[in-house]
């Protein structure tokens, strides 16, 4: 209360321009509050409505089971069941990235919140980071449950020799994935209904070219292209190599260390690209009056 009173007093003493000239510390504190504020509803949502446990854990687990039984039907080696389980767990993150990151700003626009974001004294990148952190926590819980339950039910045995590298690759995959989500969110800022439809287009086709349920090396050139462009493809391939180190994993893809490096590059590029695109597309959207156009 005292701090607020001091700010009001300082503001009234100076010009409006002086009041608006925030120190670095003020700007940073506001952005941090923004990150926490935007992540909060997603974290709280984990406990507010319990129906997600059925729809977002049990049902995706059953969907993952379908791929397990396809491999069982054709008498595949047991590690292929492990590949599917790992892919099924990573699906939670990808779905979160495309539905709750990429499509979110378009969704906020439809709900009438987007103009409030841009009118508030904060960096919109902080909103995106808050969305990413909240979504990451939310998805981690779902992915972990699917991974643990499927591992127990289908008797998957992991053979990890390099735990540290595996943890690093997992962290980098998430960073690159959510970085890509920020890029897509900026891009979707310009779009209307096509954003919703294109979000759907990012599901099965991406699952296919990312090798979500089979070793991506089998796709040849398409697989190589996916490894160089899609964090899901490269991260999953590296994690499979590390999690099933002693299995007969199909060759033809880079080593996990090189794939970790690819993920670092993807993360840096996607964050820089997201920042640039957000600025550029915000300017364009303001000029074309698209920030507040709803229901197109």
């Amino acid at each position, binding site marked *: 209360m005292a701090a607020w009173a001091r700010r009001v007093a300082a503001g009234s003493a100076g010009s409006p321009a002086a009041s608006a000239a925030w120190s670095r510390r003020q700007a940073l504190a506001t952005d941090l509050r923004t990150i926490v504020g935007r992540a909060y*509803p*997603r974290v709280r*949502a984990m406990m507010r*409505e319990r*129906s*997600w446990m059925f*729809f*977002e854990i*049990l*049902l*995706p687990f*059953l*969907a993952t*089971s*379908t*791929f397990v*039984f*396809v*491999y*069982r*039907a*054709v*008498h*595949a080696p047991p590690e*292929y069941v492990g590949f599917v389980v790992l892919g099924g767990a990573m699906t939670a993150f990808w*779905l979160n990235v495309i*539905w*709750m990151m990429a499509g979110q700003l378009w969704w906020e626009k*439809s*709900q009438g*919140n987007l103009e409030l974001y841009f009118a508030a004294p904060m960096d919109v990148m902080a909103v995106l980071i808050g969305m990413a952190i909240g979504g990451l926590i939310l998805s981690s819980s779902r992915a972990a449950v699917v991974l643990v339950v499927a591992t127990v039910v289908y008797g998957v045995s992991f053979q990890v020799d390099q735990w540290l590298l595996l943890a690093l690759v997992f962290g980098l995959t998430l960073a690159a994935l959510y970085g890509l989500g920020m890029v897509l969110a900026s891009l979707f800022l310009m779009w*209307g*209904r*096509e954003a919703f*439809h*294109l979000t*759907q*287009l990012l*599901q*099965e*086709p991406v*699952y*296919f070219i990312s090798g*979500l*349920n*089979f*070793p991506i090396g*089998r*796709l040849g050139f398409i697989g190589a292209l996916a490894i160089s462009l899609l964090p899901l493809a490269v991260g999953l391939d590296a994690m499979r190599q590390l999690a099933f180190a002693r299995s007969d994993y*199909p060759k033809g893809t880079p080593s996990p260390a090189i794939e970790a490096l690819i993920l670092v590059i993807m993360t840096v590029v996607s964050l820089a690209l997201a920042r640039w695109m957000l600025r550029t597309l915000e300017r364009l959207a303001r000029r074309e009056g698209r920030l507040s156009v709803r*229901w197109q």
Partner: protein
Amino acid sequence: MTTRSPAVHEPKFGTPAWGGFDPARTRGRGAADVRRAFSTATRLGWQMEANWTDPVLFFIYSVAKPISSALIFVVMIDVIGGGSTRELRGFVVVGTALWSFVMSGIAGLAWSILDDRERYRMLKYVYVSPSSFLIVLLGRGVARIAVGAIGALITLAVGIALLGIPISLGNIDWPMLVAVMIAGLVTIVAVGMMLAAVCLQTRQESWSYPEAAAGALFLVSGAVFPLSVLPAPAQLLGYLSPLSWWIEGVRRAIMPGVGIGALGGPGSIFAEVIGRASPSSPEIIVALLGTGALVTLGAIVGFRLSDHRARDRGLLDQTTGS
């Protein structure tokens, strides 16, 4: 002094020819109203589905999902089999093509609820209009089913042309195909109604629920592997699902000479209980009609209950965020 006939000034009920009150406006026009509401909702649904982009991108969008799904399974069996048989490829391509139809049917109705309540905030206005809410919902769902049907047909065409699946127009059992398609379509719409009933009760994130539900049903429907691979309780669920009988019926109708089937076979509970390797075509139709009728009745009851609860709790205009 002239006096004007009071008939000119006072409208009389039952005299619409001169502009009076038409009692049908309150009573409704029965089938004509239903037809009009359905066709308007269908047209609206189609425009919402299709007019967001140019026809080329819309075509790519419509076929990319089902073709990718089919390719995932084709590559999976190729990875292990090192060049699977045409019959096995045909089995998974037909299953995934039909499943894209199921997904569209299930998602269409549920997403109509979410679209109108959460995005356009029109659900309450649709609800208080004279049209039947369920008819409007069904009309909206038809457009998505049409998109799914296009995707399924193109996937089958790609399968025949590029993957060599053994389907020939001359060999198709057309009467059986027509019978199972009609019964299957009604069943798919019924399952969609059930999901719509769920989405009336849940929040914004329910966008993913239809796909999650379809993914779970995929497991027990014999779309991409024989049910005999599953544990007995899951097999039983599969035999109770009309979608399993529908997919098997369509497979029998379009690939009559192919020996691979999803129902029956060694180790299946069908073979153990009935004593024969697999069901006959008439048995498939009868089972589809029986299980489909149960699901349809359940969907109608479930939707009515959900509708009542939504009105009771004020859920029709409640929006959520995350």
